[in-house]
């Protein structure tokens, strides 16, 4: 039976119901149309290059400097500190990188936490969101309500989320400790302060938001999937579980890739929940927060923060490239 189902899926994919993949031919573009295309692209491309790519590349450049963000940059080596301030705006070579790896205690914990974050998202938060989507997509009663409730966290502001979870986790006055009777000074469970617990506590918050986001994206993918496939499989006697795994899931490969990339990126960019909790210290170090602490803020070790940013950038480039490769291979296949 399994093979039948797969065949059905393949057939459907090839069936004439799906639109032709061939790109329509408009013939050669007239000169006026070429001008129009250029006009259409000019502003967005300029904005993207000037405000996103330009600064990103400049940050790579900055990561080789020691710079407080004040004054200009000079292409010369750094001198040892003389007066009140260390030498500023000078080249340190790879010093920022080696300092980060060897002389910055939060660095390795941050890398570790980013990895944990990623693992939890991949094995728990994202599948949970997908599960929600699948269940809702099966059209159970009140799906609109579940969908809205689960999506709610995505829409709330950072400040509100911070306050909500403070109410939930506060050691002496919070919801959890009060209900479980752990709110006395002798038996406190210090959810956000205990470095053994707080990452997990914050990951609950993160899952709370991520699952809703994934659910919506996945729901969109499911809605777009050809319903005749599922009907076919269901009629064939496959139960819901089998239908999903053997029919729906494989046909959703493109959206699965999108979800995977979103998941990876969200875990690498994870920032705000930790930042509002304790500015990413004491067990909650994350790379993005370290970048922020060094770049934005009085501290202003711009060069050092940029180096941390470049590390983050390089790590993000891995999933970005995989994604782009997959995405364009698919297009090339057409």
């Amino acid at each position, binding site marked *: 039976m399994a093979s039948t189902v797969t065949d059905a899926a393949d057939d459907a994919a090839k069936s004439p119901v799906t639109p032709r993949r061939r790109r329509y031919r408009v013939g050669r573009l007239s000169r006026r149309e070429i001008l129009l295309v250029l006009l*259409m692209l000019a502003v967005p491309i300029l904005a993207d290059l000037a405000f996103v790519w330009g*600064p990103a590349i400049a940050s790579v450049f900055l990561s080789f400097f020691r710079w407080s963000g004040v004054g200009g940059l000079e292409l010369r080596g750094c001198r040892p500190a003389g007066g009140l301030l260390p030498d500023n705006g000078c080249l340190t070579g790879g010093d920022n990188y080696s300092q980060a790896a060897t002389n910055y205690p939060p660095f390795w914990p941050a890398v570790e936490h980013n990895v944990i974050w990623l693992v939890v998202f991949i094995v728990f938060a994202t599948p949970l969101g997908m599960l929600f989507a699948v269940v809702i997509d099966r059209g159970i009663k009140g799906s609109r309500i579940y969908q809205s*409730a689960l999506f709610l966290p995505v829409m709330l502001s950072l400040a509100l989320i911070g306050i*909500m979870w403070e*109410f939930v986790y506060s050691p002496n006055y919070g919801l959890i400790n009060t209900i479980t009777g752990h709110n006395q000074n002798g038996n406190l469970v210090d959810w956000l302060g205990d470095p053994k617990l707080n990452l997990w506590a914050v990951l609950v918050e993160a899952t709370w938001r991520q699952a809703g986001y994934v659910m*919506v994206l996945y729901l969109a993918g499911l809605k777009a999937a050809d319903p005749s496939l599922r009907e076919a499989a269901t009629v064939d006697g496959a139960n819901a579980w089998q239908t999903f795994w053997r029919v729906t899931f494989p046909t959703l490969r493109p959206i699965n890739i999108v979800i995977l990339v979103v998941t990876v990126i969200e875990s690498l960019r994870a920032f705000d929940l930790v930042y509002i909790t304790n500015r990413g210290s004491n067990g909650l170090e994350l790379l993005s927060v370290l970048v922020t602490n060094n770049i934005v803020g009085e501290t202003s070790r711009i060069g050092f923060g940029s180096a941390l940013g470049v590390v983050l950038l390089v790590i993000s480039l891995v999933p970005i490239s995989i994604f782009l490769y997959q995405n364009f291979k698919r297009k090339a296949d057409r």
Partner: protein
Amino acid sequence: MTTALATKPTPVRVPRVRLGRILSYVLMIGATIVWITPIVFTLYVSLRPYSETSKLGYVSLPRSLTLDNYRQAWTQSDMLHFFLNSVAITVPAVILTLFFASLVAFVVAKVNIKINVVLLILFTAGNLLPQQVIITPLYRLYLLIPMPTFLSDSGLLYNSIAGLVAINVAFQLGFCVFVLSNFMRTVPDEMYEAAVVDGAGLWTRYWRLTMPLCRPALAALATLLTTWIYNDFFWAITLIETGSRRPVTSALANLQGQFVSNQNLIAAAAMIVAIPTLVVYVLLQRQFISGLTLGSTKG
């Protein structure tokens, strides 16, 4: 083959189906309760006077419920003023992002030019960069770009609402180009061929043909963009230096006193601030899901 399968007798699996149903309901109802508990609890705290919760704790039965915190949050933080700032930032930013993204997406999806893969990479990858990585050079850049005074009284892109709109547009373009181009690909090419035969020019094919078809995707993106741009705090605090020109998220920060914080009041304020995004969601909800056909298998 499909029809052949359909004629097979359906095996009797009623008990199994029922169990699945029940499990589904248990899961969804349970998850919904867990998901909204923090929200409902915060709502509850925001309705209680500070004096009461500071005495009894947050988890206690109410002696009195009041909208006082809401009234105070509204007046004390001058919220209306900041709301209008947020509108002045979010509305143009969302409209411009959607407009520019749709232009690029149209070219990428429906105009056969060589560079469209490069374009898509440029925009999609750009969207994935962390904000923090680009802020320092961006800030310097903003101090260098002159603006006419009717758009920015500092004469610079820095510290102007126009500048804030610009970075939000630039930063969100990538995701929107990606989603919209995927969506536009689902429009059958035959329609365009027919349009060309009818003598429709490039602009007509974009504006008259593609855009109306993209309405669901635009609605979905509008919802997400509104949420993201409206809730943004990072660009607002780094690129705007006049406090009264920042969006409503900073009004919230103003309420979070650096020392003594009245959490009930802040909760009330945060609830008020959440209302506009909820309204946008409710208004666009119907089109929201159908519009987000990312990487649709039908395309």
